[in-house]
């Protein structure tokens, strides 16, 4: 069974997490590092996907800057989205050649992981045909946007745990004028860290891998800095 390293990065700025992702993805392409799942939370940031439409950004970068929200154009798929405190963000860095060479299957497995995790909290979530992401009724609870380079994945998913949903007003999430929701809004009292720990085993099962803690020597190396 393949190994997947689980790394919890805590609250980390979007740009910093992006640098870690890029470093890991580059290493993964060359076979220098194993698969990874990064779990983290971002400070307020609005990111724009490669195929994003500026009209889905309802406030200019200057207005957002005044509201303490960073703006970041990225190379992931999908349109505009918001990340912020209370949102569980997961960035899987996987080499899909070792699992399935199938982007459709990849996205479906991410969605299934989120659906399984929400089921642990008795939230019945599901898919809406033709729309990516995970939904509770007509409300979007988790967003997905992926970048793939030589079958190595980056970017990933964002699950609203205790997210302050009022921040979504700055955007039309993923270009869809559908409402958003969060686990807290549905009555769940849990932190994003707790939900992340629940999610890891579901991720392992859906991607047929074994979750391992960070490689000790790597961790030691980083803690020296």
């Amino acid at each position: 069974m393949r190994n997947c390293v689980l790394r919890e990065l805590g609250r980390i700025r979007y740009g910093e997490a992006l640098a870690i992702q890029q470093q890991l993805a580059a290493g993964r392409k060359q076979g220098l590092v194993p698969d990874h799942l990064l779990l983290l939370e971002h400070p307020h940031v609005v990111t724009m996907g490669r195929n994003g439409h500026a009209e889905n950004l309802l406030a200019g970068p200057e207005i957002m800057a005044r509201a303490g929200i960073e703006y970041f154009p990225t190379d992931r798929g999908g349109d505009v989205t918001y990340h912020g405190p209370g949102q569980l963000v997961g960035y899987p860095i996987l080499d899909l050649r070792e699992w399935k060479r199938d982007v459709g299957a990849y996205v479906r497995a991410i969605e299934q992981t989120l659906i399984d995790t929400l089921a642990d909290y008795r939230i019945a979530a599901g898919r809406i045909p033709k729309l990516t992401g995970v939904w509770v009724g007509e409300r979007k609870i988790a967003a997905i946007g992926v970048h793939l380079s030589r079958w190595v994945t980056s970017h990933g998913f964002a699950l609203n745990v205790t997210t302050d949903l009022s921040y979504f007003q700055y955007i039309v999430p993923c270009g869809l004028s559908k409402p958003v929701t969060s686990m807290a809004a549905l009555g769940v009292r849990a932190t994003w860290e707790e939900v992340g720990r629940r999610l890891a085993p579901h991720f392992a099962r859906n991607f047929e891998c074994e979750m391992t803690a960070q490689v000790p020597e790597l961790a030691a190396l980083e803690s020296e800095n």
Partner: protein
Amino acid sequence: MTDVVMPQMGESIVEGTLTKWLKKPGDRVERDEPLFEISTDKVDTEIPSPAAGTLSAVLVEEGATVAINTVVARIDEAGGAAAAPATAAAAVQPPAPPPAPPATPAPAAAPEPAPAAESESLGPLSPLVRKMAREHNIDLARVKGTGAGGRITKSDLEAYLASAAPAPAAPAPPPAAPAPVAAPAPPPAAPAMPPLPPAGQAKTRIEPLSTMRIKIAEHMVLSKRTSPHVTTVHRVDMTKVARMRERYKAQFQANYGFSLTYLPFITRASAVALRHFPLVNSSLDGNNIIYHNEINIGIAVALENGLIVPVVRGADERNVLGLQRSIVDLAGRARSRQLKPEEVTGGTFSITNFGSYGSLMGTPVINQPQVAILGVGTVDKTPVVIDDAIAIRSICHISLSFDHRLIDGALADQFMTKLKQVLENWSEEVL
């Protein structure tokens, strides 16, 4: 020649959208170097080149969705680098921003500062790099190129952006627009907004404008820009009309199911005055005056978050009952959003009745391409002096905003005097 095809990205995936060419025809490309990007189901994928050589033909445009295994490009392995198109450097200057219309009193939107002239010294730049530089407002002269011959690549820009990330490149404040001559003081170019506190609870709420609101906003600005507005106000004694109204109110309610208001009287008086002064019922088209033979009066109706001006056609051919019936019908259907498009167009004059909200008098904005609009204030019992005696009369302040390009104050006041005369000496039957 090597064919480059749309790759199969998964079992259930039969097509892909080509979102971006990372190379252009004539570019040298290495084997495994990213050549284009595709998008399938929220997954963006960089596709590496299957061979080294020159990109000789691009067969699928950005944005097109094609079936898997469709040939999207051809690569010529036989070098051919000398054939690099000569147009690369010169052709791709960003288009100049359109010149601001000279007569605009509002501060003209300052053109975005161009991303520092793409001087030839930077060497050829790919469209992607140019686009990124424009989008992020990057001065390319400050970016270190690591590509062939010091050329700036996409990753150089990404590295530059990452290093500059803490300060998201805010565009330089636009230069203050020159103050228009004799215009009312324009707002400063960049309205100073107090900085919002970071994070925590959101302190503002942002909401996109409704389509109706956008239309109204555009129309108001257009009107103020088109017509020099002047407003004249006349005090009108509505006592006779008020008596008329009192006498017929109950009968209207009983026989027709609607009340009798002041508005049909004022509409009727407007129609009479418009017949006397046809210039007020005209439009200006370049250097021509268009006189309208029909008198079609728009009545402003307030909606929940906007307003609409349905038109009473042939207003001069109706009596007070007919006018009241039209107004009730149009206003009702305006509020339930059931007006037909032809019912809100073709007006030749407008009336707005802000008096029903308690306003004493106002200065309405002309409904283009008309040249005047009547504003009706509230009707109040007021002590007035008549023949050196104080009397209690029903007084209404009626204003007329007119387009001073076409109508002078003298004409406007003659029009108002006529209107006032009709209302103060009401003699027509209402039924």
